[in-house]
C-alpha cells in the first residue's frame, strides 16, 4: 500500500508545530513522544502502520478550531480519528500528519424526546447514544458491529450501516445536522434538528466524506421509539440460489424484516466448530428478524414461514423463547471470531444486486480455488451488502499480498455485476486504488471538486479515498 512521501519540511518543523499546538490546547491534550504516538499508528486495518508527527485530543469545538487553524497556517496534514475502528484505514496517519482524535468529546448536549432527537459531541460511542435514551424507550438505529467502540464521528465520516439498516437506513438517513469545523478553523452548522436543509444539502455530502471535508464535532441524531419486541427465525437451504430466491420473495411480498442475514457453508462450519450454536450443516443459512408486538411478530413470521416452506428448506427453526432466539443469533454474532480462530482474515464489504447473489458466490468459490485461500461469506442479504472473509496467514511471506489480490478481484466482481466497492466500511486507503474500477475520471473529478471547496489546500486526510495519481496535483498544491 503506497502512501505519499511525507513532507520533510513539516517533519523538520515538528518542535515549532508542537509548541504552537500546546499554545492553544491544555497540556494533556498534545502528544508528541514517539512511544505514545504508537497508539495512533494505525486503526483496525492493522496491516499498515505509521506513527504521526503528533496527536491532539481536544475537548471542545473551539479547541478543534484552534488546532485546525494552526495546522492550516503551518501546512500540516490532519487526520481526524474517532475511535480508530476503521477497517479501511480511514484514520491511518502519515509521518507528517497530526492525528486529531475526538475521543474526549463524548458528552450528550441535549436530548429532546418530543422532537425525537439527541445532540451529542462526536466522540461519543454509537452504543452509548442509544444508552443515553434507552430509559425513555428510544434508540439510535444505525448499529455497526463495532458499535461498542466506534464513535459517531467515524460513523458520520464513513456513513456507517449495520445489521438493521434494511428497515432503518444507514447513518445519512438518521443524521439531522452537524457542527463542522473546516480545515481553516471556520466553525459552521449544517442542517439542524428540523432535519431539512434550506439550501443545498451540504450535510448529505459531508456524511460519508471520510473526514476529508471537515471535522464534525457535534451532531444532531434522530432517535426512534423502541419496538415492542423482536424475534428471529433460522432457515437452512441446500443451495445458494434457493436461499437467494427466498430472500427475494420475502421482500417482494412486502414484509419488511429488520434484518436478513446470510451465511454460506464454509462460514457455517467455522462458526459451528467455534460457537456450537447448533446450526444445520447446509449450503446456505438465513437468519430473518422481525419486530413488533407478539401478535405482529406471529403474523409476520407466519407469512415468512409460508414463503420459506415453498422453497423446500432443510430446516425452519423458530424461537419459542428469548433463550432460543439468542441461540439463533449466536453463530452469526460469532462468525468473525470463529474465522479468526482458524487464521488471520481480511473482511471485505462490497455490495451486489441481490439477484446476482448465486452467481457471485459461485465465482468467489472458483476464485478461492485459483488463489488457494479459503473464504467464508457473511452477508446482509436484504440489501446485498457482502462480507466475504478471506483467510490467510500473516506470518507466511506473500500471503497478505495474495489475499489482497483476491480481495481486489472480489470487489471488481461486485462492480461488474452492478454493485459497488464498499457498502458500509468506506474506501480509506484499502480500496483507494480500486476507485477507477467503479468511477470514470470525470466522476472522481466531480467528487474532488467538492473537497476543493471545503479544503482548498487538501490538508484534511489527503491521501485517502481517491487514487494517489488522481489526487496528486491537488495534494501537492
Amino acid at each position, binding site marked *: 500500500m503506497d502512501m505519499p512521501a511525507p513532507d520533510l519540511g513539516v517533519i523538520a518543523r515538528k518542535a515549532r508545530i508542537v509548541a504552537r499546538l500546546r499554545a492553544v490546547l491544555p497540556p494533556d491534550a498534545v502528544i508528541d513522544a514517539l512511544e505514545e504516538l504508537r497508539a495512533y499508528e494505525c486503526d483496525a486495518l492493522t496491516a499498515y502502520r505509521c506513527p504521526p508527527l503528533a496527536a491532539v485530543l481536544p475537548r471542545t469545538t473551539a479547541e478543534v478550531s484552534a488546532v485546525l487553524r494552526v495546522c492550516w497556517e503551518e501546512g500540516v496534514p490532519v487526520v481526524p480519528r474517532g475511535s480508530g475502528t476503521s477497517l479501511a484505514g480511514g484514520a491511518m496517519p502519515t509521518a507528517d500528519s497530526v492525528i486529531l482524535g475526538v475521543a474526549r468529546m463524548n458528552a450528550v448536549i441535549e436530548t429532546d424526546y418530543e422532537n425525537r432527537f439527541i445532540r451529542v459531541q462526536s466522540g461519543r460511542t454509537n452504543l452509548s447514544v442509544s444508552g443515553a435514551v434507552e430509559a425513555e424507550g428510544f434508540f439510535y438505529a444505525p448499529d455497526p458491529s463495532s458499535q461498542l467502540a466506534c464513535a459517531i464521528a467515524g460513523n458520520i465520516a464513513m456513513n456507517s450501516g449495520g445489521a438493521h439498516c434494511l428497515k432503518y437506513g444507514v447513518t445519512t438517513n438518521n443524521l439531522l445536522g452537524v457542527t463542522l469545523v473546516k480545515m481553516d478553523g471556520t466553525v459552521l452548522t449544517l442542517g439542524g434538528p428540523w432535519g431539512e436543509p434550506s*439550501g443545498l444539502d451540504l450535510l*448529505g455530502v459531508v456524511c460519508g466524506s471520510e473526514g476529508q471535508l471537515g471535522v464534525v464535532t457535534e451532531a444532531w441524531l434522530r432517535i426512534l421509539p423502541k419496538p415492542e419486541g423482536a424475534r428471529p427465525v433460522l432457515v437452512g437451504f441446500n443451495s445458494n440460489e434457493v436461499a437467494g430466491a427466498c430472500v427475494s420473495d420475502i421482500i417482494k411480498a412486502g414484509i419488511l424484516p429488520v434484518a436478513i442475514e446470510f451465511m454460506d457453508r464454509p462460514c457455517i462450519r467455522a462458526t459451528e466448530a467455534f460457537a456450537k450454536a447448533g446450526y444445520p450443516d447446509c449450503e446456505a443459512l438465513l437468519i430473518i428478524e422481525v419486530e413488533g408486538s407478539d401478535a405482529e411478530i406471529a403474523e409476520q413470521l407466519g407469512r415468512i414461514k409460508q414463503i420459506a416452506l415453498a422453497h423446500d428448506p432443510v430446516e425452519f427453526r423458530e424461537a419459542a423463547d428469548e433463550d432460543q432466539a439468542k441461540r439463533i443469533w449466536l453463530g452469526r454474532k460469532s462468525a468473525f471470531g470463529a474465522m479468526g480462530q482458524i487464521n488471520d482474515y481480511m473482511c471485505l464489504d462490497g455490495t451486489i444486486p441481490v439477484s446476482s447473489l448465486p452467481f457471485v458466490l459461485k465465482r468467489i468459490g472458483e476464485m478461492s480455488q485459483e488463489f488457494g485461500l479459503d473464504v467464508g461469506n457473511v452477508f446482509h442479504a436484504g440489501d446485498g451488502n457482502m462480507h466475504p472473509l478471506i483467510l490467510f496467514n500473516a506470518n507466511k511471506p506473500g500471503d497478505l499480498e495474495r489475499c489482497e489480490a483476491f480481495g481486489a478481484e472480489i470487489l471488481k466482481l461486485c462492480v461488474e455485476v452492478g454493485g459497488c466497492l464498499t457498502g458500509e466500511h468506506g474506501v480509506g486507503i484499502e480500496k483507494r486504488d480500486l476507485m477507477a474500477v467503479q468511477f470514470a475520471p470525470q466522476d472522481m473529478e466531480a467528487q474532488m471538486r467538492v473537497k476543493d471547496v471545503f479544503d482548498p489546500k487538501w490538508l484534511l486526510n489527503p491521501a485517502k479515498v481517491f487514487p494517489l495519481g488522481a489526487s496528486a496535483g491537488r495534494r501537492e498544491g
Partner: protein
Amino acid sequence: MRPVTEAELAEAVAGTSGPLLVRGGGTRTLGHAVGEVLETGGLSGVELYEPGALTLVVRAGTPVAEVQRVLAGERQRLAFEVPDMRGLLGREGVSTIGGVVAANASGPRRVQVGACRDACIGVRFVDGSGTVVQNGGRVMKNVTGYDLVKLLAGSRGVLGVLSEVSFKVQAVPEAEATLVIEGLGDEAGLAALRSALGSPFDVSGAARYSGRSLVRVEGMTGSVAYRVRELTARLGGDVTVAEGAASAALWREVRDVVPLQRKAGEVWRVSTLPTVAAEVVARLEGEAVWDWGCGLIWLLLPPGRGAEVAAAVAGRGHATLVKGQGGPVFSTEAPEVAALAAGLRAKFDPRGILNAGMMG
C-alpha cells in the same frame, strides 16, 4: 431545448452560452431563474426495474405517473409519496421524476421512511460544463466515494441537469388505516401527533388541518388493526377510523396541500421543530396545514409578510415562499454556509448558466 438522449443533453449544455432555465415538467419550479428553457421531458423511460431487489433505475424526464404505473404493476411504490403541486401552485404540465429529485419533493410518509433523497440511491447528471457524471448506483448500501446523490437531490438544477435517477422502492402494504381525531385545539391536536410519533407503533403519517389531527399506520392487516387499537387508547379525543381508500384520500389532501389550494394569498412552506409549530402559526395568524408531525407547516398568509415569517422561524427552522409575488423565495443561510454553496456552484457550473438566480 428538449434533448432526447443524455448525449444530446450534454451537447446542449456544452454548446450554449446563455443562461438556461432547467426544468422537468415545470410543475414545482420555484424562484426567479431566467433563461432559455431546457426541458428534460424527452429523456424518458425505465432503464431497469428489479422488484425482488426493490430497485428502479429511470431516465430523469420520465413522468411521475408512468413511474407509479410501472411500480403499481408489481404492487410497489415510491416510499416517499410524491406531492402533486399543480393544484397549489396553479400549474399545468406533466411532473417528471427528475424534477421530483431536483426538488427533493417528499410527502407525509417522510416521518417514517425519510425524504426523496433517502430513497434516491444513484444519479447521472450533466454539469454546467456539459460533462456527464455518475454517482451512487443501483444498490441501496453504497459508501464508495462522496455522496453526490444527496447533494444533487434538492439542488434544483443549479449543480447539474439530472439525466437518470435510481431508487430504492417499497412494497405496497396490505392495509392502511387513519385515526381521525377531532375536538382538540391546535396545541392538543399537535401534541397528539408528537405522542403518536413517540410511540412504538410505527406511524407512517402525522398531520393536522381543518381542526382534525390524522395519524396513519400501514402494514399487515392484523398489525394495522392492533396499532389502531393501541393508538386510539393512547391518544384519546374523539377518534374515528378511516380505512383503505378513505384513508388514502385523506393523505392525498395533506400531500397536495388541498386545503390551501385556490385561495387568495401567499403560501409559505415552513420547516421547524414540532414543539414550536403551534406557536409559529399562532404568531403569524394564517391558515395552516401541518405535516410531518408538525415539523412541516404549509401556511397561507396575506402578501408581504416575508420579514415576519423570517423572524418567526429564525434559529429554529427556515421558510420558503412557494406561492406568491416578489421577495426572496428561499431562506437566507449563514454566510459561511452560503459561501460553501456558492463555491460548489462555481465548481459544478463555472459559467453560472444553470438556473442562475435560483436558491439565492
